[in-house]
């Protein structure tokens, strides 16, 4: 529970603020183009599909790789440097199960939930941006946002973030848990956790999108 709070609830402000800002900016950018083609009415749909399908999951994954991955890497590396890991082992407690498993599980559970918050914060930011430009009502915006969204647009991309969570948890735990460079290793573990997690998330995203298209071919249309 402590790890869920650390990884989940403490990341919420970052995720919501980022989603809101991205949603606002994305509407500002897309609006002029879509208006040019007389397609201003689909701005909410574009916004919803973009956030549910790709922006929400990927940006949430990358943000968490930065905030949580660096935290896990640094904390475990510091525990290794200050002999806290040895301290756990000396008490006949399996340090891997005690330190790594809860962090990985928390990441796997927290990522999809945080992605939901990012998606809806993005929609809210998009709505406020659109409201400022066209005075559209909230009901109409939401109706248009969801009229072309099917469950597979929403469910599969959101659940793929569990894989991102697994990557963040395992990669950062690996770098933190296995360091043996003392204090110097703490910074290195944090940096490596972020860099490798981010790269693997982007790579996994490509593979998972192909898998989603294979399972839900209508999503590829």
């Amino acid at each position, binding site marked *: 529970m402590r790890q869920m709070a650390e990884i989940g609830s403490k990341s919420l402000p970052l995720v919501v603020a980022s989603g809101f800002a991205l949603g606002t900016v994305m509407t500002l950018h897309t609006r002029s183009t879509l208006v040019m083609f007389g397609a201003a009415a689909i701005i909410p749909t574009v916004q919803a599909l973009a956030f549910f399908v790709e922006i929400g999951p990927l940006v949430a994954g990358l943000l968490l790789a930065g905030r949580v991955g660096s935290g896990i890497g640094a904390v475990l590396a510091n525990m290794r440097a200050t002999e806290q890991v*040895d301290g756990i082992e000396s008490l*006949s407690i399996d340090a891997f199960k005690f330190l790594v498993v809860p962090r990985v599980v928390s990441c796997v559970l927290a990522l999809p939930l945080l992605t939901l918050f990012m998606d809806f914060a993005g929609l809210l930011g998009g709505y406020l941006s659109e409201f400022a430009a066209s005075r559209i009502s909230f009901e109409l915006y939401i109706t248009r946002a969801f009229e072309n969204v099917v469950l597979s647009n929403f469910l599969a991309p959101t659940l793929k973030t569990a894989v991102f969570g697994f990557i963040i948890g395992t990669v950062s735990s690996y770098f933190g848990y296995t360091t043996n460079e003392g204090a110097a290793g703490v910074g290195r573990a944090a940096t490596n956790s972020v860099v490798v997690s981010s790269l693997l998330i982007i790579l996994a995203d490509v593979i998972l999108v192909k898998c989603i298209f294979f399972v839900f071919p209508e999503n590829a249309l």
Partner: protein
Amino acid sequence: MSGQQKAAVVFDRVSKAFGPKQVLRAVSFEVPVGETLCILGRSGTGKSVTLKLLMSLIKPDHGDIWVDGDEITQLNEAGLSKVRRKMGFLFQDAALFDSLTLYDNLALPLRRLTTKTQDEIDSIIDSVLGQVGLAGDKRKMPSELSGGMRKRAGLARALVLEPKILLADEPSSGLDRITASEIDELLMRQRAEHQTTILVVTHDVHGARRVGDRFAVFDKGDLVAFGTAAEVENSDHETARRLISEK
């Protein structure tokens, strides 16, 4: 090894290297049950490694290590866990878990490894913290404790499972003489009241002579002298004689 069943700890031709650096070279010694062995030597001569080998936090390259009758170098994790239950380890910097209060640091092994009730756990923790003079500090975080308090807290955690063998890595380092003396007295009381076998790595010869029954002197990975203070003082090895004679 004829004495394996009687000795609490036996090192039999144990060697350990880290990369090209040979830290221990065919080291052999025995510590009888209920005795205190003080391990002396210059920095980087393998003293702390000896304790970590004993706790199986690292594995030897060669040789056998016996703890309370069990040869530990070939044990799996389940077997090691049973052996570690017999030992307590006071780390050089105490190694308290910095995200837990002092109370939770001590409660952790009791909750995970025993079936004791909450009331029993509270009672044990109060008792152990009382022994080390930290009864009023159990809600503090490790960062709120002074160096001496952290050492005593680390000792309390090492004792909370009532170990047969206590390993202490430089228990008096960084402490003033009075606080170091208090730690020494805690170690002596533990041995007197519970017949605990104690291995102490230390640079404090004054303290070592107070608590130790026997002394092992390491130099460049070799065990160069072993025995009582008088025996080490009469050793052929000059470093051993100088170390044990320091005031």
